[in-house]
């Protein structure tokens, strides 16, 4: 009985399949997120040629800069998976280190996006300048908000683990945040190709 209580405290509640309800819920959430970003990407694809009097995509995109940002986000997936591995080995020090590095890489990506938006605005592409501008800012802005939420979750997790007196009891939480983080990364893999690399 006591063993069962400890087991639940460490790994959360499990369904009749023996799988974690939290993990099932996260995968279901990520599946629904595919529909959200699918709608935003489709809308962008339809409106990307509707530039009106505003600048064209090729005139405002800075591919070398965005490539570096993409690389930063991609590497944050590596540091995230290292954090998950450390958490599963009950290595709190390694977990907090890799979570912090992941958060910093994510913050760097968001900073790059803010810089990119500012540069585009200064080049004449506002949110209401054209349908292209609206669709672009909505799509990449939604993604940026997801990254920002991820950074907040990562840094909150670091604080929670540091304040915890029981080492190694947050493995599943770290894994769930990791799933969310990797999803944000795969969405960017699609956005980078379809929005930035494939011309209008």
């Amino acid at each position, binding site marked *: 009985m006591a063993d069962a209580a400890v087991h639940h405290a460490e790994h959360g509640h499990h369904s009749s399949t023996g799988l974690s309800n939290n993990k099932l819920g996260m995968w279901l959430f990520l599946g629904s997120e595919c529909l959200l970003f*699918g709608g935003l990407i489709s809308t962008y694809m339809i409106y990307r040629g509707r530039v009106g009097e505003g600048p064209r995509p090729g005139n405002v995109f800075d591919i070398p800069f965005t490539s570096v940002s993409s690389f930063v986000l991609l590497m944050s997936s590596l540091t995230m998976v290292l954090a998950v591995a450390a958490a599963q080995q009950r290595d709190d020090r390694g977990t907090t280190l890799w979570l912090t590095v992941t958060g910093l890489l994510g913050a760097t990506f968001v900073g790059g996006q803010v810089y990119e938006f500012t540069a585009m605005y200064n080049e004449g592409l506002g949110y209401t300048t054209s349908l292209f501008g609206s669709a672009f800012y909505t799509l990449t802005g939604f993604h940026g908000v997801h990254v920002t939420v991820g950074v907040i979750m990562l840094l909150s997790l670091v604080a929670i683990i540091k304040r915890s007196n029981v080492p190694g009891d947050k493995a599943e939480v770290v894994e769930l945040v990791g799933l969310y983080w990797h999803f944000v990364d795969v969405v960017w893999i*699609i956005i980078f190709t379809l929005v930035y*690399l494939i011309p209008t």
Partner: protein
Amino acid sequence: MTTTAEHTDHGTHDDHAEHGMSIMGYVKVALILAALTALEVATYFVDFGPFFMPVLLVLMCVKFFIVVSYFMHLKFDNKIFSFMFYSGLFLAVGVYAAFLATFKFFTA
């Protein structure tokens, strides 16, 4: 009381057997992803001719499935998780492909 399934799922936190990847394995996957990204960016600077679009789309899909399979552990995890994620993904692809077709996106 715990079940056999629970033991299988959570019993061995001291190694990576439950997800089938070592630290070096993750680093190798990241290096492959970095190389594929470099190839993607190269298409912007080098003329790939008629292969431009297919190369980019294939690279995008390969990177997507590498991250989902290895970093998100779907390849090693229970198939129910794969079903839940891919159901949403393929539903989205189907719905929005039909949506784009109604706007004559593929024929314009």
